[in-house]
């Protein structure tokens, strides 16, 4: 409740109106200030679960998504098996038809075999995603060096 003199109330109303105007963006354009850089929009970490499996963990920021079919994996010093990708959400795209995307948190299991004596693997994961506001990021490469766990015989 406001109990001040009328001129102050008028001034406050004027200010309120100005703030309202300012809250409406001048155009529907996206500014880069509204967007996260890809490494923050698509947070990534990885670890070796055991001597034969890597686990990749993603946290996709709200308002962003990754395409399920755009992942590519490469490693030095190890042979990678077929990645186990969880089912994604279905998205109808005007150009690409029915596509699967990931939002929020998800994990990818990646089997590997490394020769005896290898203790570290450099993993490179390529992914590609977009923001709901209507922009996409070029394919982004996460690089991580992982210590290989040797299970006890």
């Amino acid at each position, binding site marked *: 409740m406001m109990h001040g003199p009328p001129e102050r109330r008028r001034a406050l109303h004027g200010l309120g109106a100005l703030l309202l105007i300012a809250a409406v963006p001048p*155009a529907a354009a996206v500014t880069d200030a509204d967007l996260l850089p890809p490494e923050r929009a698509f947070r990534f970490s990885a670890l070796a679960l055991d001597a034969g499996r890597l686990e990749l963990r993603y946290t996709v920021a709200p308002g962003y998504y990754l395409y399920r079919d755009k992942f590519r994996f490469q490693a030095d010093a190890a042979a990678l098996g077929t990645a186990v990708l969880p089912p994604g959400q279905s998205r109808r795209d005007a150009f690409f038809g029915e596509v699967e995307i990931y939002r929020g948190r998800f994990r990818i299991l990646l089997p590997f075999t490394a020769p005896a004596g290898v203790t570290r693997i450099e993993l490179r994961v390529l992914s590609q995603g977009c923001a709901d506001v209507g922009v*996409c990021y070029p394919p982004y490469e996460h690089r991580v060096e992982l210590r290989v766990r040797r299970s006890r015989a």
Partner: protein
Amino acid sequence: MSLRLRWLAYGGAALLAVAAGVGTQLWRQSGGEAPAAAVAALRATRLPDLEGTPRALDDWRGKVVIANYWATWCAPCREEMPIFVKMQAKYGDRGLIFVGIAIDQRAKVAAFAKELGINYPILIGGLADIEATKGIGNTVSALPFTLIFDREGRLVKRHLGGLKEPELEAIVQQLL
């Protein structure tokens, strides 16, 4: 300080903050203050067109140039491109030229250009070329990203995200 003066001071500070916010927003969209050296470097960068001939934006000096960074894997990019085709046909003879800079593979770009009937030059760039737009306001290197230059080669607008036809038409008519 009287109560009224204090309110005036608050109001003044709030107004300044609002003005600064709006100013920053407009600056980001207008592109007027992009570093001249970064803009000059970008305009001089030579990239192969679909026939393999190296071209730079500077080759089209004297025309209103709309440089559009895009890719076939980018749905919002594909969505706005029919507008460019239409406007190129409508205003091309008055001195408007769109230049598509594809961050993509040549074969995919050529197939899509044929499918859409693209009637303006397409250059093939790489990740380094979209990275280079960081210096002129596209700090997250996202697509689509569009730069509009006047006939003197001055950057008059930069736009991240898809463009709408009425908005683009108004700018073009002003510059031609």
